[in-house]
Structures are given as structure tokens and as C-alpha cells.
């Protein structure tokens, strides 16, 4: 007779417990109410088309003289940087003396399908930078680009180096064809012209499916098994729901910009192989000569660390710093360790380079 790895009675007991937890906890889920996100006080100071530029209320009496503009990705919503009071990179940056601005790209619709990367980089980001420079009477400001927003920030800094004092990139893809880049492998076989000509704007649902398909068993099954364990805790449940809201809050992508991003970056990898032009402006990472702080996550399944680390080899700067965060693409915004480590590291790095 062998020693069974689990006793039948135990399975029954667990099944009962699981069901009881689920039933009792679902009452909490029913009473969850509105899932609020973004808690730091802010003011909309500029808007253009669907873009809104927010200025966060400084948390210290004398914030840094050079403001920091956060450029988030077009994928998902930027409130991930200020998800809730105790999970907010923005709040932490403010508390460490930074003067923070954030671009909210909004939700593109059918009328925006012809927006190009040129519009996002040389128009929208450019206008936000101009607004901030003017408001503060400065020649240069600091830029913090996140994920795809980091790629945009690199392009912007390469085209307009005279406007950016320091550049921080977080989980930013640079070399789009490093080994084990599953997203890149998948994107390369796509007929992106057919896709965009057919769907117009890239649907958020299709992007979501792609991201969930990277780890389907964890992200669509195990996650909800774990949820059953916290259903009876209203605080943890609310935290879960905020994350869930963010994950499935996926704006459609302006068709032309999406076509260009897939073709120029994923399929042709022009940011590192050369020849990239945005709106007629040549883009070379060698033109990025300002100080760079590059933060990447070791377990990032969307932007593999090697993709971000390539920046060191290709950038023109002599002042390059990197931070390796032991975590994943999402954890770098919201985990307790990230809250503790990342914002002060950014603030200190910027303050060391302030005039």
C-alpha cells in the first residue's frame, strides 16, 4: 500500500471550505461598490484632443526646481502610477520632493485612427513639454517614460535633446528582438497592414487577449483561485479589484500609430538597428546624451530585462545608471518593495543631477 499524497477526506474538506469561502465572500464582492483609483490631488493644466496633462500638487514646501513629466504607455491607463494611497509611485515621488506632471492619453476612438507616432511624440509630448517649460520658465525639464512611454521618451529626447535635462526610463523596450521576447516573436508574424486596415483602431480586447495569453494559466485561472482566499477581507478585495480594473481598462490604440509601432519597432527593430524616422526627424539613440536612469524588472514577461538593458550599449550618454528591480512588469509599480525602493532612487538620482 502506498502513501497517498493526499487523503480523500482532505479533498472533501477542502472542497467544502473553498465553496464556503466563495459563497460567504461573494457577499463582499456584491457590496464592493465603486472601485476608485488615483488618489493624489492633481489639476488638469493642459489638454489637446483627448490628451490631458495633469500637474500633481507638490507634497513638500519647496519641490525640485526642475519638474518631472511622466509619459505612460498607450496601452492601459496611467493611473497605475497612482493606483491607491499606499500604492502610488506618484505620491512617493511627491513626498521625495519631486514636482510631478503626468500625461493621460485618453481613449482614442474612430476619429483618431490616423494619429501617427509623430503626433504622439512630436506633437502631444512636445506640447506638454512646452507647456511645462513655459510654466516654470525653464529650458529643460526631466522626463520619466514608462514601458512604451519610455520608448516614446527616448525618441523625443533624441529629436529634442535641448529640452530634456535628465531621462528616466522604466521597464522600457529598446531592443525589440532579444531572445525570449515572446511578445516580439508573436508580433513579427502578424500582417499588421491587414490588421489595421481591417480593425481601424487596434481593439483593447485584442491586446488584452495577447497579454493574458503570455501566461494564461496564472492570469486567467490561478489568480481567481487566490482571489477566493481574500474574498472575506474587504481591503484586500478592493486592492484586487483596483488591479483588475486596471488590467482590463485597455483603450483602443490609434490604428496608424499602432501600425508604425509594430512595424518600425517590433518587426524592424529600427531603434537599435538604425534608420528610424519619426515625422521626418531621424531618431538615433546616440543623440540621447543627457543623463539616463534605466530601471528594469528581472522577471518582466512583457519587456524582458535584456530588451531594456540594451539601452546602455546604444545610448550616446556618458552618464548612464541602471537599477535592476527583482520583480515583474506590474510589481514594479505596485509592490511594497517597489514603493519602498523605486521612487526614492529616482528622486535621489535626479537631485544629484539638479543645478
Amino acid at each position, binding site marked *: 500500500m502506498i502513501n497517498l499524497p493526499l487523503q480523500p477526506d482532505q479533498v472533501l474538506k477542502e472542497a*467544502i471550505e473553498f465553496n464556503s469561502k466563495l459563497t460567504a465572500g461573494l457577499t463582499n464582492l456584491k457590496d464592493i461598490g465603486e472601485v476608485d483609483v488615483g488618489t493624489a490631488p492633481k489639476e488638469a493644466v493642459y489638454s489637446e484632443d483627448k490628451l490631458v496633462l495633469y500637474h500633481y500638487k507638490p507634497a513638500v514646501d519647496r519641490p525640485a526646481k526642475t519638474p518631472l513629466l511622466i509619459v505612460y504607455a498607450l496601452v492601459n491607463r496611467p493611473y497605475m502610477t497612482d493606483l491607491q494611497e499606499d500604492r502610488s509611485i506618484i505620491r512617493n515621488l511627491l513626498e521625495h520632493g519631486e514636482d510631478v506632471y503626468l500625461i493621460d492619453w485618453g481613449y482614442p476612438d474612430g476619429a483618431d485612427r490616423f494619429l501617427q507616432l509623430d503626433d504622439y511624440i512630436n506633437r502631444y509630448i512636445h506640447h506638454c513639454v512646452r507647456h511645462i517649460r513655459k510654466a516654470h520658465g525653464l529650458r529643460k525639464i526631466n522626463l520619466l517614460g514608462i514601458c512604451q512611454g519610455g520608448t516614446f521618451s527616448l525618441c523625443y529626447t533624441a529629436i529634442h535633446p535641448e529640452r530634456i535635462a535628465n531621462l528616466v526610463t522604466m521597464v522600457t523596450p529598446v531592443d525589440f528582438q532579444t531572445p525570449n521576447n515572446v511578445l516580439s516573436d508573436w508580433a513579427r508574424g502578424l500582417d499588421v497592414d491587414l490588421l489595421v486596415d481591417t480593425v481601424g483602431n487596434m481593439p483593447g480586447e485584442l491586446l488584452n487577449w495577447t497579454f493574458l495569453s503570455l501566461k494564461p494559466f496564472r492570469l486567467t485561472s490561478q489568480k481567481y483561485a487566490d482571489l477566493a482566499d481574500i474574498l472575506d477581507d474587504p481591503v484586500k478585495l478592493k486592492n484586487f479589484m483596483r488591479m483588475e480594473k486596471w488590467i482590463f481598462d485597455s483603450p483602443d490604440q490609434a490604428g496608424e500609430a499602432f501600425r508604425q509601432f509594430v512595424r518600425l519597432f517590433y518587426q524592424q527593430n529600427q531603434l537599435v538597428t538604425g534608420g528610424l524616422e519619426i515625422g521626418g526627424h531621424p531618431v538615433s539613440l546616440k543623440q540621447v546624451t543627457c543623463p539616463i536612469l534605466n530601471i528594469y524588472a528581472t522577471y518582466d514577461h512583457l519587456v524582458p530585462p535584456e530588451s531594456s538593458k540594451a539601452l546602455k550599449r546604444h545610448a550616446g550618454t556618458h552618464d548612464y545608471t541602471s537599477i535592476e528591480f527583482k520583480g515583474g512588469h506590474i510589481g514594479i509599480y505596485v509592490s511594497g518593495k517597489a514603493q519602498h525602493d523605486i521612487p526614492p532612487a529616482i528622486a535621489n538620482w535626479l537631485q544629484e543631477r539638479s543645478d
Partner: protein
Amino acid sequence: MADFADTSNAWTQAWLDMQKQYMDTWMKFSSQGLPGSPMTSPFAAAGANPWAGAFEQWSRLFSQGMPVSAKDVSTRLFDLGKSYMDMSERYWQLLRQGKEDAFSVTDWRSMLQQACEQAGKGFGFPGGSTDPWSGFATLWGLPVSNWQRMACSFSPFPGEMEKALRTDDQAAESTVMTRAVRQFLSLPPVGYTREWQEQQQVWTELFLEYTRTVQALGGVLGKVVQRALDLFGKRMSERIQNGESFDGLRAIYNLWIDCGEEAYAEEVTATEFPQVQADMVNALMRMKRHEQRMVEEVTTALNMPTRTEMDTTHKRVYELQRALRRLQDTVEDAAESVAVSAPPKARKTAVKKTTTAARRARPKTRKE
């Protein structure tokens, strides 16, 4: 009249009581044992998997009271719960048999493998049952299942269409259905509506091609299933041989998920998977593109605006706006350069010199 919360709470309690009673019966059954028929449940009439069946029934009832903000999460939770209950029941049956008889490690592993294969039959591509994406298979067929749901929004035809065309016997399906469709496609279009018939035939070809690519992806995922089962069986066997036990069913479930992800990761980085997946997306897009053309023909005939016309208009507006913004930028950038390079007192003057057009173009701000 009691409000919904009271009713709901009372119902929840009633459900918990009923469930306890239900499970108590199982417990009793579990400890007594029924020699000769250890795999038969006293609730066999409720269906092949009564635990999961019962779970599904009450989850359907409960989901009706969910607020909009929690609807999606509750649906995913119920899906998971059903799979989890299904897995619980299968393990209970498996472990119970092992407890009843004097099993060797090899016997137990073989039985485990058999049970896994039984579970896997529903999602084993090709040659599985009618619905390879349901029940326990949700743990394995998720990428395809999610794709089917998502693809619904891309076509005027129902997303379940591909699934509906399957039969219990896939081999028969491939001959009977394909033959019928091919016969339809081989008919030469005639008469006044021949062009429309041609369009329909082209669409059918594209649909068949899309179906083929979905099944091809299913085939690749079938390899994931097989590999995951191998890994799972191997790791379970190692534990049994080492005399290790599991903390509980959740530990087995977690091991299962780990094996699934490991097998999936191996497969998705292989060269075949990205191509098969891209083929599926491309095939769906070709089909949808053709549908759009067909729809536009109809709307044009009815003198209604088409997407193409809308796009042309949007493009013209966009290009006009772009040209205007470039002119404004030239002026604003020049004014800004003066402003930021001038001494503080001169800044106000420099800013005032911004052209009227540029001032008008500046969007309004708002507070939150």
C-alpha cells in the same frame, strides 16, 4: 418586504446549510466506502460531475445579484470555481480508489495518468469531444477559449459558429461537413445575384480557412496539454515515491498550474507557435475584411454612409488639423524660445507676443 440584501444573505445561509448537508453525505460516503463501486457517487443522477454541476447551478443564481463593477470578476471566479470543483471531485474519486485497494506506486501513477487523460480528452486536440473548451478543459483550453470569446466582437457572425459546426465525431465532421461546403463552393454562381453568390463563396472559403487555423492552434495547444500531463504525472510520481504528501488540494492545483505554464512556455517560444497564432489572427482579419466589403456593398445600395467614407472624412480632417498644428507650432516654439531665454521681466512681454491664432488654439484647462 425584505430588501435584496436580507434576501440574499438568507439565501446564502440556506445555500451554505444545503451545501453542508450535501457534503456531509459525501463525507459519510467517503468514510464508509462502497466496496466494488468506489467511483460511483450517490448523486450520479445529478450529472457526470455533481460537485461542479451543483456549483454551476448556484453560481448562476448568485451572479444575478452582482453589481456591474463586480460582474466580470464574479464571472471569472465562477468559471474558476466550477473547474476547481470538477478537479476536486476527480481527485476525490482517484484518491478514494487508491485508499480502497492495495496500490503500488506504478498502479497509482497509471491510474492518475488515466484520470488525467480522461480529463484531457475533452481538450485533447484533435479528436476530442464536441466541446474541447468546457469544464475541466478551461484549465487547458484558456487561450483558445478566450480567443473565441474575443473574436466574437470582430465578426457579425456569432463567435460560437466555429464550435457549433463541430460534431462528436470530428473525423466524420471533416468529411461530411467539408464535402457539403465544398459542394456549395463548387456551384457556379448564376443569375441576377451571381456577384453576391460569389462574395458568399469567397467568405465561406475564408471562414473555412479561419476554422482550420483555429484548429491548428488547438493542435499546438494539444501538445501543451500532453507535455503538461507528462510533467504533472512525473512530479506527482516523484513525490509519492519520496513519501511526500501535499498540503492540500490547492497544492496539487498549484502544481498543475506550474506544469501547465512550464509546458506552455516551452511551446510558445518554439518557432511553430508564433506562426500558427499569427496565421489565426491573419485569417480572422481576412475574413472580417471581406465581411466589411460585403456590408459596404449593401449600405451603398441603401444610400447609407460606409466606414470607408467615414475614414476618408476623418483622414481629411486629420491632415488639415496636422497642417494647421505645424504652423502653430512654428509660431509657438519661436515665442517659447524667446520666453525661456529672456530675463524674467521680459518673459511676460515675450509670452504676450504669442499670436492670436496660437492663443485661440490653446485648449482650455480644467480642474479635477
